[in-house]
C-alpha cells in the first residue's frame, strides 16, 4: 500500500508538471503571471497555516518575514551597476555593493535570514498566547517594516528597489510550492507534526505527555518564517519592484483569508484556496473597471474588489467556519476507497 501511494504521488507530480508545461505554453503573459502568483500564495498560505493551523499559535507576522526575504534576495541578486544607480540618496554599504549571486543560493539565504530573525523574534514572543501573540507578531512585522524604511544604506529606504531580475517563472514558483507541499505533508505526519497538533489541541495535556512546548513552537515558528521569507523573495522577483509599503499587515490579512477559506489546519485546503483566491482576485479586477454589458456600461468602482474579498472573509468566518476542507486532507486512501472505485471492483 505504501509503495503504491508513493508511486501514485510521483505520477501525480509528473502529471502536474506536464499540465504546468502545457498551461505555460498556452497562456499569455498575463495568465502565466497569475499562475506564478498562485504558486507563491500557496507557499505563503502553507507558511501561515503551519503556525496558525497546525500549531494553534495565532501569528500575524507573515508580511514582515516576507519583507526580509524579498529584500535579502533582491540585494543579493541585483547587479552591482544597478545597485550603484538605485541607491542615489545614500550609497549602499560597501560589503553589499559587489555581491551578485544566482537565484537559488539567494533564495535559500533569504529563507535562512528570515528564519534567523523569526527564531530571534520567537524567543520572547512565543511566551505569549492567543491575541497577545497576534498583536506582538503584528507589532514585530511592523517593526521590521519601520527598520527597513529607515536603513537607507542597506534597503534604499522608502524608495524601494526597482528592476529586480525577473527570475520567478512558473517552474520556480510551483517548484518551490511542490517542495513545500511535500515537506509539509511529511512534517505533519511525522512525530514533530503530531507534537504540533497536540499543542494545538491542548497545551497542558501535550506538556504532560512530555512534549517540550517552547521548543516545538519555536521550531514551527522558525520553519514558518523560512517559508514566508522564500515566498517573499519569489514575490519580489515576480513583481520586479519592492518597497516597504508593499509589506503592510494587509498582505498578512490576504494570506489569512486564503488560510481561512481553505480550512485552518489543512494543507490541501491551503493549496486549493491559494489557487482559487488568487485567480478570483485577478478575475474580480473587472469590478474595479467599467463593465460593458453591450446595452449598458456599469461604471466600475476602484477598490470594490477588496470590499468583496473582505465580505467573503466575513461570510466564511461567520457561516462556514470550517472553510473548504476543514482539517481534512487529501489522501490516496480516500480516493481509492471512494465509491467510484469500489463500484468498479464489484463490477469486475
Amino acid at each position, binding site marked *: 500500500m505504501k509503495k503504491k501511494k508513493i508511486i501514485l504521488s510521483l505520477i501525480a507530480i509528473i502529471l502536474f508538471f506536464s499540465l504546468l508545461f502545457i498551461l505555460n505554453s498556452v497562456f499569455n503573459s498575463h495568465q502565466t503571471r497569475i499562475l506564478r502568483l498562485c504558486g507563491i500564495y500557496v507557499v505563503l498560505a502553507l507558511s501561515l497555516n503551519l503556525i496558525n493551523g497546525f500549531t494553534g499559535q495565532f501569528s500575524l507576522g507573515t508580511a514582515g518575514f516576507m519583507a526580509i526575504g524579498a529584500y535579502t534576495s533582491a540585494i543579493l541578486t541585483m547587479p552591482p551597476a544597478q545597485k550603484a544607480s538605485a541607491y542615489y540618496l545614500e550609497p549602499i554599504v560597501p560589503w553589499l555593493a559587489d555581491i551578485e549571486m544566482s537565484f537559488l543560493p539567494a533564495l535559500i539565504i533569504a529563507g535562512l535570514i528570515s528564519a534567523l530573525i523569526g527564531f530571534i523574534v520567537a524567543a520572547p514572543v512565543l511566551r505569549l498566547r492567543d491575541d497577545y501573540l497576534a498583536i506582538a507578531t503584528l507589532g514585530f512585522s511592523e517593526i521590521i517594516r519601520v527598520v527597513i524604511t529607515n536603513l537607507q544604506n542597506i534597503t534604499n529606504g522608502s524608495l524601494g528597489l526597482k528592476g529586480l531580475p525577473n527570475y520567478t517563472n512558473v517552474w520556480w514558483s510551483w517548484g518551490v510550492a511542490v517542495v513545500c507541499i511535500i515537506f509539509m505533508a511529511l512534517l505533519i505526519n511525522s512525530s514533530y507534526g503530531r507534537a504540533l497538533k497536540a499543542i494545538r489541541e491542548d497545551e497542558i495535556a501535550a506538556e504532560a505527555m512530555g512534549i517540550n512546548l517552547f521548543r516545538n513552537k519555536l521550531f514551527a515558528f522558525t520553519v514558518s518564517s523560512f517559508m514566508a521569507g522564500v515566498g517573499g523573495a519569489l514575490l519580489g522577483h515576480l513583481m520586479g519592484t519592492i518597497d516597504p509599503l508593499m509589506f503592510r499587515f494587509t498582505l498578512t490579512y490576504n494570506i489569512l483569508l486564503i488560510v481561512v477559506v481553505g480550512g485552518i489546519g489543512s494543507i490541501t485546503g491551503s493549496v486549493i484556496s491559494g489557487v482559487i483566491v488568487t485567480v478570483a482576485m485577478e478575475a474580480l479586477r473587472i469590478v474595479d473597471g467599467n463593465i460593458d454589458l453591450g446595452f449598458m456600461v456599469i461604471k466600475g468602482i476602484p477598490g470594490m474588489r477588496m470590499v468583496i474579498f473582505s465580505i467573503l472573509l466575513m461570510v466564511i468566518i*461567520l457561516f462556514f467556519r470550517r472553510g473548504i476542507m476543514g482539517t481534512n486532507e487529501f489522501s490516496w486512501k480516500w480516493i481509492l476507497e471512494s465509491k467510484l472505485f469500489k463500484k468498479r471492483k464489484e463490477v469486475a
Partner: protein
Amino acid sequence: MEIKEFLQHLVNGISLGSLYALLAIGYTLVYGILRLINFAHGDIFMISTYAGFYLMSSAILPWWIAFLLAIILTCILGILVEKAAYRPLRDAPRISLLISSIGMSYLIENLAIVFFGGRPKTFPIPAIFDRIITIGSVKIPTLSFIIPVITIIILAILLHIVHNTKTGMAMRAVSTDYEAARLMAIDVNKIITFTFAVGSTLAAVGGIMWGMKYPSLIPLMGVMPGIKCFIAAVVGGIGNIRGAVLGGFILGLGEIMLVAFMPALSGYRDAFAFILLIFILLAKPTGLMGKNLAEKV
C-alpha cells in the same frame, strides 16, 4: 533644550496621550468583557473622523450639532459591528472571533477606500478651536488644552457610570464572570451592546479631536492609532479603565519625547509602542495596573 521648547513638547504629549487614552478605553472595555481584541475599533475611530468631516463640510449645521451627529453615527456603527460580526460567534473558539474582528476591520477600511477615496482630506476646524494662546513666550494652541480637559471630563463620567450605576455594576459582573453574570439574570447581550456603544462613543470623541489636531484624513488612518492604543491598554493592564488612561499617556508622552530628545530616531516613532509592548509583556504581563492572575494548570 530650552524650557520653553520642553513645555511645548509636554503639552503636545499630554494631548496626544489623551487621545490615545480615549481610544484605549474602548479596547480595554471590550477586552474585559469579550476577551477579544476588537481590531475594528481603530476603523470605527477613522469613520468618526470622516463623519465629522462630511457633516462639517456640508456647512449647513453648526459645528456642535455636526460633531454630536458624528458621535451618534459612530456609536450606532459600533453597535452594528458587534451585532453583525461578534454576536453570531459568541460560542465559537476565540480564534474565530479574532479573525472575525480582523475581517470586520478590513471590510470597513476597504469600504472607506471605496466611498471616501484614497486621497487625503483636510478636516475643517471650527474657528473657536483654532486659536493660539501665548503664555509668556510659549505659544500653545487652544486645542492642546481642550483635548485633555474633555478627556478628563469624559473619564469622570465613565468612572461614575461603571462604579455607581446598575448598568456599570452589571458591566463589572460580566467582565468578572460571564456565566455567573448570566445566572444572576443580567442580560449579557444588552451589556455587551452597551459596552460597544460606550467604546465607540469615546472613539468618536477622540476621532473628532484627532481630526482637529492632525487634520489630514486617509482611510487607513485608524490602523496605527488603533494598534497603538491596544498596546496602551495592555501596558496599563487590560480590563482596567484607569490603566488604559495611564497607558495612553505613557505612550503619547513617550512618542513625543522620543522625537523631541532624539530627532535621529524619529523614523522609529511607530516602533516605540511595539518595543514598549514587548518589554511590558515580558516584565509584567498583566500590565502596570492589572491584577495578577494565577495561571490555571
